C-alpha cells in the first residue's frame, strides 16, 4: 500500500466576491518531499497556503494533513494541527517590536516572557543553522538587511522543529547571490530536518534548486506537475510559456 500523503488537497475551491481563485484544486505532497508551486501573480498560490494553514477557509473540498481532515477545525484541534507547520513569509513578517532572539523563539513561547536564558540559547542555535551569529540576538528586525531578515524568519520557522515548512516567495526582493544563499539554506534545512516542504515562487532557479517536484497553478487548477528536471521540457504549453517568460501563449 502506498504511503499516505503528508498533505492532500481534493477539489478545493475558494472565491472572493465572485472571483474564483481556486477551482477544484487537487494536490498530494508525500512525507519528506519538497514541492514547489509556480504560477502567475494572483493565480492562487498564497491562497492555497493560507487554506492549508487554516488562515482562510475553502468554500468546498477537503484538505487532509497526515490523513486527518483540517477544514473546519477550531480551537485546540486547530492549534495542534498548526503545531506541525512552520512558515516563512514573503516579507519575513518579523515582529518589529521584539528583538531577534524573541522573534526566533516566539513559536516556543507564544510570546510569553518565559525562560529567557534557555530561549536565548535556542535562538542562538537556530540562528547558527541559518548562518547568523549571536551578535544579532539583541538587534531589532529593522536593524537587519533584507537577507538577514529572511534568515531570521527562517530560524523562527524551524525553531519549533515543525514537520512541514511553507516558504512563500523565499527569494523575492533579494539579489541573485543572496537568493542562492537562501536556496542553499532551505535545501540543507529540509534535508537535515527531514521535513515536508511546500514553496511558492516565481523564481525558476529557486524552484529547480529547492524542489523535488514542481506544480504549475493556472486559473485555480494544477495544470502540470512533474519532477524539477522536466521543468524546461515539460511539453506543457502553460509551463513552457511561464518558464521562458514569453508574452505569447495560452496564458493571457
Amino acid at each position: 500500500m502506498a504511503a499516505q500523503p503528508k498533505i492532500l488537497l481534493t477539489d478545493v475551491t475558494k472565491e472572493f466576491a465572485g472571483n474564483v481563485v481556486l477551482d477544484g484544486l487537487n494536490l498530494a505532497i508525500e512525507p519528506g518531499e519538497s514541492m514547489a508551486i509556480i504560477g502567475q501573480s494572483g493565480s492562487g498560490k498564497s491562497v492555497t497556503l493560507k487554506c492549508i494553514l487554516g488562515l482562510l477557509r475553502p468554500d468546498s473540498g477537503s484538505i487532509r494533513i497526515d490523513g486527518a481532515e483540517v477544514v473546519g477545525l477550531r480551537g485546540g484541534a486547530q492549534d495542534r494541527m498548526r503545531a506541525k507547520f512552520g512558515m516563512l513569509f514573503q516579507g519575513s513578517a518579523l515582529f518589529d517590536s521584539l528583538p531577534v532572539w524573541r522573534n526566533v523563539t516566539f513559536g516556543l513561547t507564544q510570546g510569553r516572557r518565559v525562560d529567557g536564558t534557555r530561549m536565548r540559547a535556542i535562538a542562538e542555535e537556530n540562528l547558527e543553522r541559518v548562518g547568523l551569529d549571536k551578535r544579532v540576538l539583541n538587534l531589532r528586525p529593522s536593524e537587519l538587511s533584507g537577507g538577514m531578515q529572511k534568515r531570521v524568519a527562517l530560524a523562527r520557522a524551524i525553531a519549533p522543529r515543525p514537520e512541514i515548512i511553507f516558504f512563500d516567495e523565499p527569494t523575492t526582493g533579494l539579489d541573485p547571490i543572496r537568493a542562492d544563499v537562501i536556496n542553499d539554506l532551505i535545501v540543507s534545512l529540509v534535508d537535515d530536518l527531514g521535513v515536508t516542504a511546500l514553496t511558492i515562487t516565481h523564481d525558476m532557479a529557486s524552484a529547480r534548486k529547492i524542489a523535488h517536484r514542481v506544480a504549475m497553478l493556472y486559473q485555480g487548477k494544477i495544470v502540470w506537475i512533474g519532477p524539477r528536471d522536466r521543468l524546461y521540457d515539460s511539453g506543457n504549453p502553460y509551463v513552457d510559456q511561464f518558464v521562458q517568460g514569453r508574452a505569447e501563449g495560452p496564458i493571457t
Partner: protein
Amino acid sequence: MPASKPAAALLAPFTTIGRAIIAMFAAVGRVAMFAGRALGRAVTPPYYPARFFEQLAYIGWFSLPVVGLTAIFTGAALAQQIYTAGSRFSAQSTVPAVVVIGMVRELGPVLVGLMVAGRVSSAMAAEIGTMRVTEQLDALTTLRTDSYRYLIAPRLIAAMVALPLMVLAANAIGIFGGWLLAVQKLHFNSAGYLAVTRKYMSFDDFQMAMVKAGVFGFFIALMGCYHGYRTSGGAAGVGNATRNAVVSAFVLILASNFLITAMVFG
C-alpha cells in the same frame, strides 16, 4: 418585477438611507463581536502581563506630559473666563467652585479622553494595521498565538486602568492651574480659594469622572485595535485605519460623555 424608472427614482433616497442604516447596524455588530471576543480572551488564560504593563506605561505614563499641560492651561483659562463673566454680576467668588466642578465633572475626563485618543488610538491603529499588511498577524496565528489575547486584550484592559488614573491627575493639575491663575493674577486669597475648592469637591463627581474615564479608555483602545485589525490595502489602508480610529474614538467619547451625564443628572 423591477420597478419602473420613475418609481426607482422616487425610491432612490429611501434605498440610500436604508443601505446606510443596514451598514451602520452591521458595523455596530462587527465592533460588538470584536469587543466581546477581546474581553472574553482578557478573562481567560493564558495571560500576557508583560504586554499589559507595557501598554499601561505607554498609554498612561507616556501620555502624562501632554495631559498635564492640557489640564493646567484649561484650568487656568476656565478660572479667567469665570472671573471675567462673573464680574458682570459681582459673582467673581464662584471661580473656585466652577473650576472644581467643571474640571472634575466634564473637562478633566473629556479632555484626557480626547488627548489620549489622539495619541493612542492612532498609534494602536497604525501599529496593528501595519502588522496586518505586513502579514505579522498571520505570522502570529501560524505561531499558534491568539492575536486577540496577545495584542487586543492587554491594550483594552490597560486603557481602562490607565484613563481613570490620568483623569485623577488631570483633575488635580487643572484645579491647580485655576488656583495658580486666581491667586497670582486675580489676587484671590489662597486659603479662601482652597477652602471653597474643598467644599465643592464631591465624591459623587469623582466617581462619575472615574466611570467616564473607564468608558473612554475602553472606546479609545477598542477603536484603535478594531480599525487596525481590519486594515487592508497597504500604506493607504493603514492611513485610513488611523484616521477612522481617531474620528470614531472622538465621536464615541463625546456621545458616551453626554449619555453618562444625562443618566446621572437627567
